[in-house]
């Protein structure tokens, strides 16, 4: 008989690669993966050979070989930045089914170094298929990567709801305030980056237009980053050196692959994945004390806030307005690591969401890795939503602290 997998598994550790951000000496996907897995195993107090299941977008098999491990559960789901939320969902389900007790979900992506290394070290990348629908029917028209796609959703949101570029700019401003409490954030300060924190709405509005209405400071970074979390069964979750953070709800959903097939440019499938995750958890948006929301762009975070029912439809940016979601703000804290907008974003940002949610709910956001005073919140519950592709795929988790 199927059982509700809520609380059947917990995240028991979360760690990054030794270096993240703009790594001057360079890195490859594999070096970042391995550093993160090694670090999370040390943190939790296990060896890689104790891992029974391995999940990594496009890399699970290569990692198993590299580490000489023989997992009995392999998940190489690769659908963009929410792959990690989905893999935690899958791991929880497999643990609930009794297939395994300990899985690692890992990320390694040399988004910054690969540019210097002519794409080498970035892993196998399938050649674009000229016969793919998007290649035939979007390819001729000058799109150049994610910003050039997402901007169309921004325009539609403004048209439909009367929202403004300034509304969304506040998301970048408030998120940058969190970066000032995270010394590992690329945009921690003006010393670490010309656009480092703090910034103003005017700074965002005056930054270079990339794909109108998206300006440079509406867009995430492109960095090197590795990260890993350990997911363990309820039976094992309290047997490690670290605190468990419980997976109360988990879900995933897809609405399209290419934007030509996106029915409603103001909504993502997080509407569906959030509802499923809340239902599994037996909790609602009003009970969430922290939100980790994928912010590839201010637009992504803004409309996702609506999909997660944290604001009414059309009012997503209001979650951040006037610093409400920032340090010491009057609303729930959002993206307390500084977000993909100012902390780090290697291409698939979902792992950074997981790691920060783990740190916040395990009470290690200040001393875990270099969080400054004021970064640790009192949150005991969190909603974590990843978005992959071009607003295409979502994975949502509801996490709960152990105490």
């Amino acid at each position, binding site marked *: 008989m199927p059982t509700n997998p809520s609380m059947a598994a917990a995240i028991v550790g979360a760690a990054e690669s030794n270096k993240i951000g703009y790594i001057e000496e360079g890195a490859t996907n594999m070096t970042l993966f391995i550093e993160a897995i090694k670090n999370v195993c040390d943190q939790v107090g296990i060896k890689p050979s104790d891992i029974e299941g391995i999940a990594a977008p496009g890399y699970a098999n290569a990692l198993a070989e590299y580490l000489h491990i023989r997992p009995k559960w392999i998940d190489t789901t690769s659908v963009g930045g929410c792959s990690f939320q989905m893999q935690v969902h899958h791991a929880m389900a497999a643990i609930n089914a009794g297939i395994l007790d300990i899985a690692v979900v890992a990320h390694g992506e040399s988004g910054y170094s690969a540019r210097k290394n002519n794409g080498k070290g970035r892993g196998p990348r399938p050649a674009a298929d000229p016969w793919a629908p998007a290649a*035939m029917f979007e390819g*001729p028209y*000058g799109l150049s990567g994610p*910003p050039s796609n997402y*901007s169309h959703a921004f325009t*539609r949101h403004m048209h439909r709801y009367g929202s403004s570029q300034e509304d969304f700019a506040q998301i970048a401003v408030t998120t940058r305030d969190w970066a000032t409490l995270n010394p590992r954030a690329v945009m921690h300060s003006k010393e670490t980056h010309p656009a480092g924190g703090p910034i103003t709405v005017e700074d965002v509005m005056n930054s270079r*237009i990339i794909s*109108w209405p998206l300006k440079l400071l509406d867009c995430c970074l492109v960095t090197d980053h590795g990260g890993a979390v350990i997911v363990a069964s309820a039976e094992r979750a309290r047997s490690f050196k670290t605190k468990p953070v419980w997976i109360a709800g988990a879900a995933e959903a897809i609405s399209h692959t290419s934007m*030509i097939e996106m029915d409603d440019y103001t909504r993502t499938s997080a509407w569906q994945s959030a509802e499923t995750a809340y239902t599994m958890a037996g909790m609602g948006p009003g009970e969430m004390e922290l939100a980790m929301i994928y912010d590839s762009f201010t637009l992504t975070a803004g409309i996702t806030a609506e999909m997660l029912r944290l604001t009414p439809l059309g009012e997503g940016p209001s979650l951040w307005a006037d610093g409400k979601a920032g340090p010491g703000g009057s609303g729930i804290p959002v993206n307390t690591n500084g977000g993909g907008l100012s902390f780090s974003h290697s291409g698939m940002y979902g792992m950074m969401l997981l790691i920060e949610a783990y740190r916040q709910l395990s009470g290690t956001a200040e001393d875990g890795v270099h969080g400054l005073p004021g970064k640790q919140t009192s949150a005991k519950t969190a909603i974590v939503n990843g978005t992959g592709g071009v607003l295409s795929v979502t994975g949502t988790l509801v996490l709960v602290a152990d105490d």
Partner: protein
Amino acid sequence: MTAEVDRLMRPGIPCAAVATGCANCSSVAHDVQVTPPTTRHVSQSVMGPVKRTRPLSRDRGSKERERTLADYNKPIPDPDPYTTGPFWEGAKAGKLVLPRCTDCNRTHFYPRNICPFCYSMNIEWYEASGEGWIQTFAVQHRAMGGWADETPFVTAFIDLKEGDRMFTVLRGVDGNKPEDIKCGTPVKVEFEKVNDDVSIPFWRVV
């Protein structure tokens, strides 16, 4: 017309391989077509001669092709003949030719070998009005290749009068004045010949 269209859609698949079908080609793709009275079918004249002097593939390297490619320095689609052939044949003739399900009568785009609304596999092609509206748009200030020379240009998703959606670079608008462009504005299709084999649809504000 459908016999020709069907062959274009599935070149290399012998008609005899299909179990049931029409007297002409044994294809099942059109033997249960329900044609609404208002339908304008794609005719032989629209589609042009059935015999194609060359494959649609661009991997040929003739001098002629090199010359035309040099003139048009932006990405040229390499059409999949299995599911999209009639669209591109129509485009060459300056016609917007779309796929439609003969069971539920809904138009879908991009073209498929199954109706994504009712899952019928009975698909026909017809000439559409070439009219639509701007669903949403963006202004590209950064682009690669030949498009880099045309920034800022406006890209848009177009809601087709017959249903479903296409993507385009919008014509008849000024990328420096995005506030003058409105979602919902009517547009009409036009085609640009980019080489001997391929014409590309663009949409223009009317």
